[in-house]
């Protein structure tokens, strides 16, 4: 543990958030702003033959009504492959935007939106993914998970010779992110340059996409997104609304604001796709896996091919010599899916970890013992050593805390009154990604430091952790440090996604601090009497506002003193950190073990997760407070995915039936009981200078499978189709 790193810190932006001082995209007030309101299609597939805006245009306060007829075309449509609003009369999903009414007030725009009348040539939509899995085509390769078909050894041959085989199919419905903050943008133009306040996980990509669409240089687009009220992946893609907002502001020569309603959130960005999986396992009677075949299909749109990488971790988790994974797609008349927390991983591990649990009963073996029996000491797909892997310790600590040894092996053997009790466990896994990132540090002669990097903070505590890292390595108290993010006038950072922000931007902060330390040392050593004479950068440390001898801390000089001696008001360092070459020699993964207890009301079929223990190994823990929050959030989301979350589509119309928080059920506080999160810290010198791996996605990866396995243990009924709603539990 350092002076700051590893200690509990409350969020540095917490007070601003709870007092309303932190502005979100829709809260940037620009004088003269006109308000847009979206009009959505009532069909899922076809063409607009006529669109009548006359009544809307005459409605009070209306400034203009934009449709595909009067909306400027993208300057470079080939540079943006996703859905583009109002660019053609073609309808490719239900509740697609067909017009935007812009008025002086939001209420006037909303009222006039009701008066826009569209006539369509309607075609029958096809949204029944599960009915069309047989038609699935091979997915394109993925930049993160590689080829859509991957093999190790000969999985089919090994399967046919296995002593024990198991095969089952699993399904997951579409699910939506449902962040509290609706997507929004406020845009205005000044001297031919655009400034846009947007809700984004990736301001630089918004900038390049807007520049390409609007036909202006990237430098003329300024994207600002300082606070994000949850995103979970749905603000990685540049969604259609910033394009519309910027375009309307340019056409109208005045600022325009556009905010999605909750209902519009269900088609205004992507979602976790419908997923069908088939798992085949081959094993020896003694439990050693000899073959895994994992076939997955997810739905995509007709606009682009979204590969959810469902099978991405199957070949990296168990010591199995023969493995095959296949990813397929089915085109549907729905919006394009997108990344949603732990994309692919939580879906794929739901199937794989459920199947492993099923195999354990077939083998009459404890599910945890089966996993330990197949524990991978090196990556089974490529033979690389893991940089660190404390999964065995996660299993041990989790099982101990949970009391796994009290599990009675036979299903339906634990009961209390009307409630059947079940224990289930699972394994979580995610990458230890790192991306290039740049940070600017201004060290000031007043003893403060300002850091900037155009990353995002969608809730994990990025402002806070960067402040902690800067404090640690600059030797300055956290309250004297400011960290700015979410602005394209700041140095480039990667999208906040993939659980790589601390590893990427945090390492850049560290790197910048190291450079500043060297520069300060050189300056200090200009003084022939300096107590630091003769020391190299590694022999000194920045601590408590001083540059001092690491071994003899009384020998040092103040940072402010060095700057003042040189007559400097500040010292600036812009540092780009890139992943080191050594990473390529290792398999870089974070792991976790999940144990849950469920109580199933036998008369109602209701499942309650009464206890969850999650032990996680993801390198170094920078801030235990926000880290535990992350993992608890993961458990809660896992409960939602397992038990309630389900975007329901009426296939007759291709229309989402439950686009509201009243009808799309995320867990409420009363659904979450005891959640115990724990970390097994790993000392990883390979992944990055800070030794951190990702944790945001990881926290939920194993939870749905663990709950499903516990439901089986409680009831003797295996539910392979999420969510495990009471009707399924009662019927099974």
């Amino acid at each position: 543990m350092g002076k700051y790193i590893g200690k509990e810190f409350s969020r540095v932006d917490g007070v601003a958030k709870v007092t309303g001082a932190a502005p979100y995209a829709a809260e940037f007030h620009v004088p003269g702003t006109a308000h847009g309101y979206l009009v959505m299609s009532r069909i899922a597939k076809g063409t607009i033959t006529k669109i009548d805006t006359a009544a809307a245009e005459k409605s009070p306060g209306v400034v203009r009504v934009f449709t595909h007829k009067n909306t400027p075309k993208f300057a470079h449509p080939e540079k943006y492959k996703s859905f583009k609003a109002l660019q053609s009369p073609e309808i490719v999903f239900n509740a697609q935007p067909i017009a935007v009414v812009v008025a002086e007030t939001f209420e006037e725009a909303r009222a006039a939106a009701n008066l826009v009348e569209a006539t369509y040539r309607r075609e029958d939509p096809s949204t029944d993914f599960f009915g069309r899995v047989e038609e699935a085509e091979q997915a394109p390769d993925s930049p993160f998970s590689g080829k859509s078909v991957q093999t190790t050894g000969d999985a089919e041959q090994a399967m046919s010779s296995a002593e024990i085989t198991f095969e089952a199919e699993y399904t997951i419905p579409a699910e939506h992110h449902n962040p509290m903050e609706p997507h929004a943008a406020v845009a205005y133009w000044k001297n031919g340059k655009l400034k846009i306040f947007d809700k984004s996980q990736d301001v630089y990509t918004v900038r390049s996409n807007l520049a390409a669409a609007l036909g202006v240089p990237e430098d003329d687009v300024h994207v600002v997104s300082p606070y994000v009220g949850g995103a979970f992946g749905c603000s990685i893609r540049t969604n259609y609304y910033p394009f519309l907002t910027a375009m309307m502001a340019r056409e109208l020569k005045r600022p325009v604001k556009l905010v999605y309603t909750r209902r519009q959130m269900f088609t205004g960005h992507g979602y976790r796709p419908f997923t069908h999986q088939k798992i085949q396992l081959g094993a020896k009677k003694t439990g050693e896996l000899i073959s895994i075949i994992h076939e997955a299909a997810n739905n995509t749109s007709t606009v682009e091919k979204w590969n959810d990488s469902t099978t991405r971790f199957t070949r990296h988790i168990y010591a199995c010599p023969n493995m095959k994974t296949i990813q397929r797609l089915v085109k549907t008349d729905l919006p394009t899916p997108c990344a949603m927390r732990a994309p692919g991983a939580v879906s794929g591990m739901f199937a794989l970890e459920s199947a492993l649990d099923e195999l354990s009963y077939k083998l009459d073996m404890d599910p945890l013992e089966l996993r330990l029996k197949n524990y991978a000491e090196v990556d089974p797909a490529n033979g690389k050593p893991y940089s660190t892997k404390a999964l065995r310790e996660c299993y041990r600590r989790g099982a101990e805390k949970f009391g796994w040894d009290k599990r009675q092996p036979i299903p339906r053997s634990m009961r209390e009154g009307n409630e059947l009790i079940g224990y289930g466990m699972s394994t979580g896994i995610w990458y230890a990604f790192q991306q290039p990132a740049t940070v600017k540090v201004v060290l000031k002669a007043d003893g403060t430091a300002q850091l900037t990097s155009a990353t995002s903070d969608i809730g994990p505590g990025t402002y806070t952790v960067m402040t902690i890292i800067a404090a640690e390595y600059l030797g300055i108290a956290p309250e004297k440090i400011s960290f700015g993010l979410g602005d394209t006038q700041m140095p480039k950072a990667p999208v906040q996604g993939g659980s790589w922000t601390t590893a990427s931007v945090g390492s850049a902060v560290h790197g910048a601090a190291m450079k500043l330390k060297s520069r300060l040392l050189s300056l200090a050593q200009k003084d022939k009497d300096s107590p630091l004479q003769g020391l190299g950068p590694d022999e000194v440390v920045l601590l408590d506002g001083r540059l001092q001898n690491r071994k003899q801390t009384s020998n040092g000089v103040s940072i402010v003193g060095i700057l003042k001696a040189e007559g400097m008001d500040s010292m600036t360092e812009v540092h780009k950190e890139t992943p080191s070459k050594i990473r390529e020699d290792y398999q870089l993964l974070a792991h976790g073990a999940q144990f849950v207890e469920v109580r199933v009301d036998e008369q109602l079929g209701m499942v309650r997760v009464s206890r969850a223990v999650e032990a996680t190994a993801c390198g170094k823990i920078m801030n235990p407070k926000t880290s535990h929050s992350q993992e608890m959030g993961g458990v809660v989301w896992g409960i939602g995915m397992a038990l309630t979350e389900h975007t329901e589509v009426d296939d007759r119309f291709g229309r989402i039936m439950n686009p509201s928080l009243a009808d799309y059920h995320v867990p409420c506080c009363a659904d979450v009981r005891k959640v115990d999160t724990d970390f097994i810290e790993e000392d990883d010198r390979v992944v990055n200078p800070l030794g951190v791996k990702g944790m945001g996605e990881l926290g939920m990866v194993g939870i749905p499978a663990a709950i499903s396995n516990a439901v089986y243990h409680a009831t003797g009924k295996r539910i392979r189709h999420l969510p495990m709603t009471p009707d399924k539990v009662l019927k099974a």
Partner: protein
Amino acid sequence: MRAYVPDFDITVPDRLDDALKMLAEKPGFYRPLAGGTDLMVVFNAGHQIYKNFLSLHKFQELHGIHVTDEEVEIRALATYTDLRYHPILKAEFPMLCQAAAESGAGAIQNRGTIGGNIGNGSPAADTPPALAAYGAEIDLISKDGVRSLPFRNFQTGYKQMDLRPEELIRGVRLKRKSGRLHSYRKVGTRKAQAISKVCFAATVRLESGKIVEAGIAYGSVAPTVGCCEKLEQKLVGLSLAEASKLDPMEVKKLAGESISPIDDIRSSGEYRLKVAKNLAADFVSNLENLNV
């Protein structure tokens, strides 16, 4: 979110008498507005067909929970929060408190009223099954006076009720009697803030060791809040020990006869029927374990 605020009018009379006159003069013209927690949802969705609202808030006659030796009178504007924490209701009519506690979140409970919960006419409302099980009387007020009828006869069909256009719901009355046992269970997708898949309210009253009154009502499983009259009759006259030994299959059969659940977005008819029967059988077989 399509409703346009200026399209709507709200009238806020100072006196109940004036409001009743307005209702009589223009029957059906005004939609009474209490907490607004149902009306505003429809308004927000752009489906609000009523354009003229009549606010009830200033009428002291419609506020409060009044207790006498014989009865508890809950006036229409009592909120879920009022119900939830009322000491006499908690002691004697706990199913109403539980229903109030399980309706929506805190903000809704502070705004929503029992009159609105009844007047909205939803078969999925949570307080009506408890009112029906307790044998509540409902009082309706118009300029011609007060009309009372048993609450269980009030709903006549899906969102239909025996309420004339010139009438307002004044409140409900519950007879205070000792010896009641209660069981209220709401089955929703999650533990709170979910509209019921099935709602079950059951009570029996004992005198000299025998059941003398039984009230068993369901929500969300028929077009109206429904009572299991056959099962109620079956229980009357039995001791708890005798009742708890009734054949569960027979109990389930009697319970099933009074309801007609459908498939909808919240659940399947099959699930609802099975659970409704299970709840009745569980209530009857556990009668001896319920606390007076």
